[in-house]
């Protein structure tokens, strides 16, 4: 399978503006910081959660509790995949009971990762509610899951892939559309 670059969807400044907007939307919906916690999904969702967390602190002047979740152990493809994905550290150093959680990930596609994340969170406690914030929604859901906060909607075909790059691990901020059909 060859990877062919098709189009750049977001550049660094687009992403910065989206992070700012998502931070405002989350605060608006939650009416401030009351009971608000952020949980980013490893790997890239965690960095996005950190960025949104910083932005919220800039706006409100207070820190919002931010945790990180690796959902590998809750995935539904454990028996069918060939290679074991590596498991990163989950770190949720606060109780989530009765809190309003915002789950944060980079791309929303089939919805299976979010399903796994919801299962995982239930093992940590009983939150008051869970929102979902996503940088890019590319469609093709296989489960009844919908994001509450969306950075950008990008309708894609199956022969395409969304490649999110973040400064923290990829050395640059960009979202590109890739053709994987051949």
């Amino acid at each position, binding site marked *: 399978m060859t990877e062919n670059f098709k189009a750049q969807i977001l550049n660094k400044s687009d992403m910065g503006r989206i992070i700012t907007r998502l931070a405002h939307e989350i605060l608006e919906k939650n009416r401030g910081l009351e009971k608000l916690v952020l949980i980013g999904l490893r790997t890239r969702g965690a960095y996005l959660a950190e960025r949104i967390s910083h932005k919220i602190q800039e706006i409100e002047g207070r820190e919002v509790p931010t945790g990180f979740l*690796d959902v590998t*152990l*809750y995935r539904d493809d*454990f*028996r*069918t*995949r*060939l*290679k*074991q994905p*590596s*498991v*990163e*550290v*989950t*770190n949720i150093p606060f109780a989530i009971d009765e809190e309003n959680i915002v789950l944060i990930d980079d791309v929303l596609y089939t919805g299976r990762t979010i399903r796994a994340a919801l*299962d*995982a969170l239930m*093992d*940590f*406690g009983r939150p008051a509610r869970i929102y979902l914030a996503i940088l890019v929604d590319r469609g093709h859901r296989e489960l009844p899951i919908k994001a509450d906060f969306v950075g950008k909607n990008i309708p894609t075909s199956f022969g395409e892939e969304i490649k999110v790059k973040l400064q923290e691990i990829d050395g640059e901020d960009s979202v590109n559309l890739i053709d994987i059909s051949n």
Partner: protein
Amino acid sequence: MLKSRHLLGLDGMEKPEIELLLNTARSFREILDRPIKRVPTLQGKTVVNLFYEPSTRTRISFELAEKRMSADIVNFSAGTSSVKKGESLIDTVKNIEAMKIDMVVVRHSSPGAAHLLSQVLDANIINAGDGGHEHPTQALLDMMTIRERFGNLAKLTIGLIGDISHSRVALSNIFGLKAMGARVLVCGPSTLIPRGIERLGVEVFHNIDEVIPQVDVLNILRLQLERQKSGLFPSLREYHNFFGITRERLERAEKPILIMHPGPMNRGLEISSHVADSEHSVILEQVTNGIALRMAVLYLLAGGKSEIH
């Protein structure tokens, strides 16, 4: 990705594989502190714990690790089984495998027992101690515990103290620590150190007071009391005087030394109570880490479709 679908020993295992095991175990450690200490990953997998030798810690640790991963478990002890009627190891496990199981954790007094099973069974085999040969999960959890404190194993000096000859913990530790680039010193009475062990890349000492100033970590092995009857050392008291790790001995070192022991401890013999309970002792952390490490082993071996045999 691990190269083998079994964990038989650390002999020949290279640094990237050991690092994968230790990193995965570090990620799993947090699960033990959750309100619900269980992940659904191994749902539908059946693990048999096949213990031909007595064991408390290792057996409970494996069992808890399996439960934390949501596997189904069958426990087998030789004492209460058809082994008493004279059934061979291979017949026993072939019968158990015919009941459709996925993984076997085996402890046996014969070196090579786990290796033998890996040749006759389709299940994944995990060696939980085979005679005086290897005990890979113990060595891995020891390395995990050292790495937690020091961040890195390379450039550290680790002393293995006591009965090296009969210790599978020592042998697995030597293989693992050498692969990770550590310096390994072994120290004990000459009757308890196998000839030619230098060939594994370790340095041999018979005077504990020469070892203490050089090491960052002391891993103190259990003195197997049954050996004393076979005349390998004159008396327990003499052993304690020459090789026992005491506060007085450690105070002569310039820096604090991390104290480890695989258990069960003979307090007042190879280790004094003061040392065992001191702030530099990580003996109980070893036990906790053992569960996370064994969860990581189960995870890395059990997943996916078997592709290689």
